[in-house]
């Protein structure tokens, strides 16, 4: 019975990783860059939710929506100021800039909110469910899984069914040809950052509700794990990010339960190495053919 409990915890944690990984993978797909500041947007989302709820006394849902708005703007501004000027630069320059933005956000948070961890009030107010067999599922777990599932379904429909979604796929595949169709590539990149950052805000609120310690480095480790999840599933692939995220959460949870808490990251990274050795493009990644 314990196994089921750990599995559910893993799915819940993994769905948060999946939402974060979606941000990584969409930005990689469209802008061909690794946005290592993505994890820190989660942290900003957490702080904003905290401020809207605690200091301004807003209801949880409004607080999360407010955090999504702030993070959307933040994501667009980061892209405009830090990444857009480097559109023609080498990918190494962009990568280093992204790491710089990550430290900038963490240190700004340190200046504004201090280093003392804040105790995050859960955004979830529904009661736990007790399953037959005595397994208790917390309200946080239920909401996390449901919200993540809705986000994944919504995003999949958006990408595959809407005209804008098709345009995003076109830009991801061939920017030049997309421009010939009249698609504004810069606007598409902005939209991608906006969506990724709004999702990061949701992830921040959900993550802090289950693990209620909020500090400037809160987003760093989940961000890196979600990056691993995105690579695991095949970077650039949306279903891959979802699968990779959930699998990673389950592996982490089961490792913590049955092997060792300290080793969980080691096991996660070892799994990544094995997957990449067997299938270098990740579980659902496609082989990118180089243009001649």
């Amino acid at each position, binding site marked *: 019975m314990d196994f089921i409990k750990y599995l559910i915890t893993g799915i819940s944690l993994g769905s948060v990783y999946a939402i974060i990984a979606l941000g990584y993978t969409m930005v990689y797909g469209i802008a061909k860059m690794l946005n290592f500041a993505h994890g820190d947007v989660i942290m900003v989302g957490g702080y904003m939710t905290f401020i809207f709820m605690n200091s301004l006394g807003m209801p949880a849902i409004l607080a999360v929506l407010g955090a999504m708005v702030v993070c959307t703007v933040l994501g667009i501004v980061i892209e405009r100021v830090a990444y857009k000027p480097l559109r023609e630069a080498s990918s190494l320059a962009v990568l280093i800039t992204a790491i710089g933005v990550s430290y900038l956000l963490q240190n700004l948070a340190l200046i504004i909110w201090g280093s003392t961890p804040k105790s995050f009030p859960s955004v979830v107010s529904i009661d736990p469910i007790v399953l037959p067999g005595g397994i208790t599922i917390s309200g946080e777990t239920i909401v996390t899984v449901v919200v993540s599932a809705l986000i994944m379904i919504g995003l999949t429909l958006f990408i595959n069914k809407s*005209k804008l979604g*098709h345009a995003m*796929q076109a830009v991801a595949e061939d920017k*030049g*040809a997309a*421009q010939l*169709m*009249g*698609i504004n590539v810069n606007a598409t990149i902005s939209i991608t950052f906006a969506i990724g950052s709004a999702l990061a805000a949701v992830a921040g609120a959900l993550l802090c509700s289950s693990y209620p310690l909020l500090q400037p480095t809160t987003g760093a480790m989940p961000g890196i794990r979600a990056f691993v999840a995105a690579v695991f599933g095949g970077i650039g692939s949306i279903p891959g990010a979802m699968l990779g995220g959930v699998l990673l959460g389950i592996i982490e949870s089961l490792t913590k339960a049955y092997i060792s808490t300290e080793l969980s990251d080691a096991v996660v990274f070892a799994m990544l190495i094995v997957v990449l050795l067997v299938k270098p493009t990740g579980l659902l990644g496609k082989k990118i053919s180089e243009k001649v």
Partner: protein
Amino acid sequence: MAKMLEVRDLHVSYGAIKAIKGISFDVEEGEIVTLIGANGAGKTTTLHAISALQKSDAGSITFCGKDITHMEAHKIIKLGLAQVPEGRRVFAGLTVQQNLEMGAYTRVDSAAEIQKDYDKVFEWLPRLKERRRQQAGTLSGGEQQMLAIGRALMSKPRMLLLDEPSMGLSPLLVKEIFRIIREVNKSGVTVLLVEQNAKMALDIANRAYVLETGLVKMEGNADDLANNIEVRKAYLGC
């Protein structure tokens, strides 16, 4: 006849390499004009400069009386100038139907008007209709070329730029593609065709320009050029 496209003293370079060293040419409404020349003559670069995928260093490009030299690439198709790029560049992950939908991306007229153009494209290119739910990446080379043409036509262009549409296709398919180009032109679309297959290009074109290392070396009536001894030696192999 009115001038549709006017290119004046165009210069384009890739870093230190000058690819186009001051070329001028015109396309008049209703014409098929072809740019022929060997690899590296600057044919594709010229088309990229017109569509603003490549920045021009100097000179001017005017389309329907409007200076488009420094226009952003994604705004050009709205003026009625569509390009079928070299190597087809269809969106492999999207279906045939979705590729066509991308061609009509900027259109704001009614769904019924757009549907008319779907019907027209499917009439010209019936193979696309059979395969419209298939991913573009699974099509054969010839079908992808047809899709690239159909996709450009979905923007309801006044002028079509075609970059090496015969590349990598069997002689039978090349014939088919050229037949389609002629039909499209007859329906009122002006055509600027870039080709290495000079024989086929001169066959359907009204006028032609011969490019050599970034300069216009010869220009004139397509039939005259096809009979020109220099052109025959260099590009027609006879």
